[in-house]
């Protein structure tokens, strides 16, 4: 499954990093502590968070995250968008909160 497939299935907004929409998605990770994500997120995961800071992209790059989903309608900061485009890691958005979108992503990945 690609990031693009997830965008379409979960009706997500695409803020940036469109060059990375064909990345393969192999799992998910939900956390708002970047120190935790650095230590524990699996490569290929879609990362679900409310953090919008530019450090999100540094951590996503470090962990080979396939895409980031911002919850509750939150929008990325300007320099976060720049890094997303540079690193070709899409930033996606939903108005749902983390529990709901995590459940939907889990079902989507595990139904395939």
């Amino acid at each position, binding site marked *: 499954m690609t990031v693009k497939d997830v965008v379409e299935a979960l009706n997500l907004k695409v803020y940036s990093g469109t060059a990375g929409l064909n990345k393969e998605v192999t799992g998910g990770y939900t956390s708002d502590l*970047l*120190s935790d994500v650095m230590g524990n997120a699996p490569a290929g995961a879609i990362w679900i968070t409310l*953090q*919008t*800071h*530019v*450090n999100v992209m*540094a*951590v996503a790059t470090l962990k080979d995250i396939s895409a980031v989903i911002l919850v509750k309608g939150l929008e990325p*900061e300007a320099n976060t968008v720049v890094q997303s485009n540079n690193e070709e890691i899409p930033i996606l958005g939903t108005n749902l909160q983390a529990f709901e979108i995590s459940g939907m992503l889990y079902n989507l990945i595990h139904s395939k």
Partner: protein
Amino acid sequence: MIVKADLHIHSVLSPCADLEMSPVNIVTRAAQMGLALIAVTDHNCTLHGPLTRSLAARQGIYCLFGAEVNTREEIHCLCLVDTEEQRLALQDYIEQNITRIPNKPEVFGYQVQVNEQEEIVQEIDYLLHAALKRSIDEVAGFVHGIGGVFIPAHVDRPKYSVTSQLGFVPPSLQYDALEISKNSLVEQFRKSNPIKPNTQFIRNSDSHFIHQVGSTYTEYDLENLSFKCFKEALLGQGHSSVLPVV
């Protein structure tokens, strides 16, 4: 002049601080510990600044105004200022931007402002530990805009720190110094964080109980006991400096 400073002290306004932490007791303890420069930095609150400053002045201690602001990312940052005008601007910014959650004193603790006679003059009804709706970069920008000093607190700790919330110190963050706890060495911290080589580190007690005041401190060589010289010491300007923090 060599000055011992503890710039991270909580008073009874902070829900998590001990009820003994009145301005009177804090100043008395600061004098016993030989501190010459202090700051009462309650969670998202500057209201004990003026009383503490006037009490401290009688002991020859200078008290800066400020607060430990909790940013949107839930990062604790020391925001220090000097004048009453700056303090009011900071207080207003906090009140305009804090997420309003009613305090439950029996759960979180009491948030009371007291006078010199240690009588309660005000109880804050919203939770001061809540986060502002402003990012760390926005708070830093605001504090610098009013001429204040911005210092991310206990950067090495696993809770409410820039490293716990954002993974590492963002290279673009505009700070005047970093506060490191007594549990870590500066050299170790530098190894895991890509920070500017000229970054100034300081240590404070983060006191919540009276015996902690001045237990951890930083020494400064100040041209005179003022906010201006303190700021110059942090920034490596003028004739003031921070004594080595390892």
